[in-house]
Structures are given as structure tokens and as C-alpha cells.
């Protein structure tokens, strides 16, 4: 089991970016029965979502978030020596979108840049990877970009997926530190036997050009994913409590991947987490995949009552892969948390 506690990383800022176009589950899907929409909305908790236009990719949302982040932190782009993009909606099969972003963000050619293909667990895996690089001194400043435009691979007439997903991007500034209190605890897990439960089967190299166009769209076995989440996430949270020596009372926030409001509340109840410590973005923005954890944190903003000190958060990602993981760490009260609406240049 990949469990580790690591020093060496300071979180300087987190910015979420959402596209301007809002779609309403109730109003914009006349081909579904209204009762059916109400049912899905009631369980998943999703009323509206944001979708990117045809010319806007994940990379554009993440780039905008990164520019705002660096500007607000007064980071010179030339000081960034690591760029990690975690997404399942890159611009191209090749090259890596991170290479394109290195250029578009004005980062130096001494910057290591690479893509990671993960979705729901993206943010936790990206942070774990960045922490490893910063701890080993391989990098000093890393931009962790996570985002998704699932509206581009969801069939709008597929009732199992059409009402659930929204587009968003995020950027997180991570910096090496010698602060002994900067300790993050990670638990990372994988079970590829459920790889078919959330899959876009066509368009890559296993099925290059399938004739059935639905093969290019997301297929989801919702009941299996529900089952997986219900069984796997509570032990993950308990492992994180044990590894970090914390209890639910120590936390300001538990940020769950925004897959399903009913499930999030169920999971919180199962492990004794008070719901006021569980911010939700799913109602307004849907399941934003790789961006859901940082976007939810950015929307929540710093908690009240920190008295100027750092606050403890647990970040939890779970889903496609099947892949899941969590991190327990402290955020300084001056850590930038911000969000904004994307505007094309």
C-alpha cells in the first residue's frame, strides 16, 4: 500500500477556473422526462454545470488559472521549474499538453513538464508526485494543473452521464520548504479490475476508429462506481486519520471529489465527519473530474476561526481507474484560494 508522510512542500495558492456558459439540468435537456431529471438531480445533487465552448480546452482553463495564480503570488514564470498537468482531456494524443503549456505560460526551458492521465483522483496524485519532487529537491517551484472538459466526451442523450459532468480547470502553486511543520500524509490506491466501469473506449490505440460513435463517449457503470466508492473511501479516510494521528475534529475541511452529493454525505456520516466541514460544489458545477477538489476548495475559501494559524484539510479523490487516494495536510492561512470565470483572450 502506498502510504507515506512527506515534508518539503508548501502550498502557496490554489485557483479554480470555470467557463462562463451555464447549463441547467432542468431546462436544457428537454429530451429527458422531467421526473427522471428530478430524480437524478435529487440523488446526485446537480442542478447546473458549466461547459466550455468548442474552442476552449482543459489547457486553456488551466492556463488562465495558472496566469492568475502567478500574478497574485508575484511568481516570475521563469522561476517555475516543474509543471504537472493531470487530466483525461488533453489537447492532443501527442505531444503532451504540458509541453504546450510550458511555452504558452512562458516557463523556462529548464522546467520539467509532463502529463499524467488520471481523473477523479488527479489532484491527490498530482500533489503526491509534486511533493516527492520538491522533497527530493528535484524541483523548487511546481505548478500543478488539474482540469477536465468532460462535456466534450459525454453523449448528451445518454441518461447515465449527460446530467452529471461539468468543465473546469485549476492551478496550484507548490514550493519547496524546509519548514519542519510542512508535513503531508498520503494514501494512494488502485484497482484496475474496475477499469471498464468508467471508460471512453474509442479513439486511442486499442480502438483507433470505431464505427459506433458512442464508443468515443463516456460509458459509466454507475452502480459499480457507487459500490466502489461506498466500500473503498471510508477505509481510505480511516487510514489517513491513522497515518496522520488526527481525528475528524482536527479538520477545517474535508474536500471530497464531487461525484455525487448523496454519496458524499453518506461517506461523511460513515466516518463521523460533520457536514459543515464538507464543502460542496457539485450542485452548481457538477462533477468537474480532475478539477473538482481544488475547485471546491477554492470556492469554499479559507475557513473562519483559524485565528491566523494554519488549518487542516483532507483532500479525497476517487473514481476512474479505478484509482483513489487522499492527503491530509495543513494549509497556511495566507495560502491564496481563489476562483474566477474564464474569458477567452
Amino acid at each position: 500500500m502506498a502510504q507515506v508522510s512527506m515534508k518539503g512542500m508548501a502550498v502557496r495558492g490554489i485557483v479554480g477556473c470555470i467557463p462562463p456558459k451555464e447549463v441547467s439540468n432542468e431546462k436544457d435537456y428537454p429530451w429527458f422526462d422531467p421526473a427522471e431529471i428530478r430524480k437524478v438531480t435529487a440523488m446526485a445533487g446537480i442542478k447546473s454545470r458549466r461547459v466550455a465552448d468548442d474552442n476552449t480546452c482543459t489547457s486553456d482553463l488551466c492556463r488562465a488559472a495558472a496566469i492568475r495564480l502567478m500574478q497574485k503570488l508575484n511568481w516570475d514564470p521563469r522561476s517555475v521549474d516543474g509543471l504537472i498537468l493531470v487530466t483525461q482531456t488533453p489537447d492532443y494524443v501527442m505531444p503532451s499538453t504540458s509541453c504546450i503549456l510550458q511555452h504558452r505560460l512562458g516557463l523556462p526551458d529548464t522546467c520539467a513538464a509532463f502529463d499524467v492521465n488520471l481523473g477523479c483522483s488527479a489532484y491527490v496524485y498530482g500533489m503526491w508526485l509534486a511533493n516527492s519532487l520538491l522533497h527530493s529537491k528535484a524541483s523548487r517551484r511546481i505548478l500543478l494543473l488539474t482540469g477536465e472538459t468532460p462535456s466534450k466526451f459525454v453523449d448528451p442523450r445518454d441518461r447515465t452521464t449527460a446530467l452529471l459532468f461539468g468543465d473546469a480547470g485549476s492551478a496550484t502553486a507548490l514550493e519547496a520548504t524546509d519548514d519542519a511543520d510542512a508535513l503531508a500524509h498520503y494514501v494512494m490506491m488502485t484497482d484496475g479490475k474496475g477499469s471498464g466501469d468508467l471508460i471512453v473506449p474509442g479513439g486511442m490505440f486499442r480502438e483507433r476508429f470505431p464505427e459506433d460513435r458512442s464508443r468515443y463517449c463516456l460509458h459509466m457503470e454507475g452502480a459499480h462506481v457507487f459500490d466502489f466508492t461506498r466500500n473503498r473511501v471510508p477505509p481510505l479516510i480511516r487510514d489517513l486519520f491513522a497515518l496522520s494521528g488526527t481525528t475528524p475534529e482536527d479538520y477545517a475541511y474535508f474536500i471530497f471529489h464531487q461525484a455525487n452529493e448523496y454519496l458524499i454525505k453518506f461517506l461523511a456520516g460513515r466516518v463521523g465527519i460533520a457536514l459543515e466541514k464538507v464543502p460542496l460544489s457539485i450542485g452548481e458545477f457538477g462533477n468537474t473530474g480532475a478539477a473538482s477538489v481544488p475547485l471546491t476548495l477554492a470556492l469554499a475559501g479559507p475557513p473562519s476561526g483559524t485565528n491566523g494559524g494554519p488549518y487542516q484539510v483532507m483532500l479525497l479523490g476517487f473514481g476512474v481507474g479505478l484509482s483513489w487516494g487522499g492527503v491530509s495536510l495543513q494549509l497556511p492561512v495566507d495560502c491564496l484560494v481563489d476562483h474566477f470565470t474564464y474569458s477567452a483572450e
Partner: protein
Amino acid sequence: MDTQKQLEWLTDVLAVHGRVLTLDDTRHTVAEWDSMGDLMLLSHLEEDFGIVVSADELAAISSAKELFGLLERNNAVSAG
């Protein structure tokens, strides 16, 4: 919960409109009883009756009659 109430419950959970399901209904006769329907059933079985079944166990249930058998085996008759 009598049979009629069970049928109304299943009709509501699967968001079937225009009719109330009958004991003769199966996965094949109810278009709404697809993977989304299973997802709704998983959550409502737990929320309404405290019954936890796996997705595979649920997938093995192919008719309204079999589903109500599950409710009764789990003593869910009076829970609703």
C-alpha cells in the same frame, strides 16, 4: 409495506412515468431499469430500508418480484 406500496416505491425510484409497475415487470419490460436505475436502487435500498447490496448482487435481480423478495428477506416490510 404491502405489494402495492412496494410497486409504487419501485415506480418512483426508477422514475417510471405514465404507469405503475406490476409484479410481472422485469428489467426487460422497464426501459428505466438500466444502469442508472440500478444506481438509484442502490441508494434508495440503503436510504429507505437500510439494505446494503452490492452492484453485482443487484444486477442478478431481474424482476420486481425478485426485488421485493430481497426486501422481505431483509425484513423491510414495515420500514417504508
